[in-house]
């Protein structure tokens, strides 16, 4: 996050670049080198092309997928699954977490069993949900929603339970009613934690989407394409799908970070 206060002296040649471009360029050095090595290896035919296709072949596959194939449909299917599960699981998780954090009774009743539930690895639920909801769309959405639920709940719970005592005292001193306390003190104080929860929840929804597509019935989606690539031994297709997954994941984190900055304006100086 914050860089060290005084930058060390730099070599003069770096001053020629505009400062905004410098991090972009230095970040490109290693990837470009790696792609170069990859190209050399592929061109030298050290490895069979079906195991390591050349960068050009991957790029060509990318074009083909974008132009003709089902790829756009796959991306849309994965995205809408992830967002659908997130839109169900995350708000429920926030509400549940806030209830646990704001009401001592609810915290004592539901807190321990929720913590116990959290110990079970997420993917252990896949077979159960598949049997309850089927391996189709309903099962996938249920799994993604479940994945999005817990991070939102945990963070909201922690944040709502940790409203600083001085603020609670201030609420009493100003004789705020329950609603005003919630609106002016409790929710804003818990907001950073809730946003952290939402971000984590989004990441988990994305992870669960890929998992659901890999483990449950075949359907359009990026996970399905990965499986297809494995079955048909098409490494170029898998690299394309992984790249798109990375870019979409990056987009999600940027989105979450922007939303967080926007709603926490009061923290900025």
């Amino acid at each position, binding site marked *: 996050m914050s860089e060290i206060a005084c930058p060390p002296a730099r070599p003069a040649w770096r001053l020629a670049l505009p400062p905004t471009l410098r991090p972009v360029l230095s970040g490109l050095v290693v990837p470009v080198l790696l792609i170069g090595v990859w190209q050399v290896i592929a061109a030298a035919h050290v490895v069979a092309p079906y195991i390591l296709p050349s960068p050009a072949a991957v790029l060509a596959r990318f074009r083909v997928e974008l132009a003709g194939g089902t790829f756009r449909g796959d991306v849309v299917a994965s995205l809408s699954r992830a967002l659908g599960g997130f839109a169900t699981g995350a708000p429920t998780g926030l509400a549940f977490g806030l209830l646990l954090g704001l009401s001592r009774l609810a915290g004592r009743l539901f807190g321990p069993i929720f913590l116990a539930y959290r110990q079970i690895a997420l993917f252990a639920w896949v077979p159960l949900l598949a049997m309850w909801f089927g391996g189709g769309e309903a099962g996938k959405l249920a799994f993604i929603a479940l994945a999005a639920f817990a991070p939102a709940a945990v963070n909201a719970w922690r944040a709502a339970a940790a409203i600083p005592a001085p603020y609670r005292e201030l609420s009493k*001193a100003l004789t705020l009613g329950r609603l005003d306390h919630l609106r002016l003190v409790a929710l*804003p104080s818990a907001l950073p934690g809730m946003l952290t929860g939402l971000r984590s929840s989004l990441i988990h929804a994305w992870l669960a989407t890929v998992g659901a597509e890999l483990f449950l019935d075949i359907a359009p989606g990026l996970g399905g394409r990965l499986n297809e690539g494995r079955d048909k031994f098409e490494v170029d297709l898998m690299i394309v799908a992984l790249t798109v997954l990375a870019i979409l994941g990056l987009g999600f984190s940027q989105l979450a970070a922007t939303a967080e900055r926007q709603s926490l304006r009061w923290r900025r100086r």
Partner: protein
Amino acid sequence: MTDALPDRSDAIAALEIDRVGKIFDVAGRRVEALRDISFSVRTGEFVAIVGASGCGKSTLLRLILGLDTDYQGEVRLDGRRVKKPDLNRGIVFQDHRLLPWLTAEGNVAAALRRSGLPKSERRQLVAEHLKLVGLENFADAWPAQLSGGMSQRVAIARALVNRPRFLLLDEPLGALDALTRLRLQDELARIVRHEGTTALLVTHDVDEAVFLADRIIVLQPDPGRIARIVEVNLDAHRDRSAPAFLRLRDEILGTLGVRPSPRAIATAA
């Protein structure tokens, strides 16, 4: 009870502190913060409380506000025991305790939630009080953008905005520079006189106490109890360098265990 009020009747005492004691439990150890504190405050009076750090000044204010009802003895307002905070008593906490997610304006307005006033009137009151503390140009600033002294001024505006009968001030000018401090002392004296507010001021600054108060309660630590109560029989408009002023100040410093400097004695003489 208070032996310092020979010539005034107790019948008009608005606030009575009657043999109040408070014991904290710190890690299984009993810490006696206050012992046998008794005094009363008449309507319109300005009382200052001075004493060493940790002698229970903030604790006493919290009891008077009604934030803590677990103590020995009784705090009475108009003859009735104080049970919980209400808008008759405004407080400026020692830490300014602004809500960081509300603007300066929002923080002051939060105190008016329970006033029952119409919106337009509230907005006007907020603006007036921000002007009163010289922050009319910072209405939209977040607390993170204010200096420590500015934050304390917002807190003072928040305490005043309900026109409380009692103003409880816990070192409200502690974080201010010497100049602003002097200016705000004048301001405080004017406001209190103008609004007819009864004020209870905790301070470390004996000059401030002598300048503002009609009566000074000197506390001594371990456990916190009253060392003595001093009447300030000076004019309403006090001269900070008048011999009578300095003599009284040195007397109180003596009670607190500080020997006045020779220079101070020379000026006083």
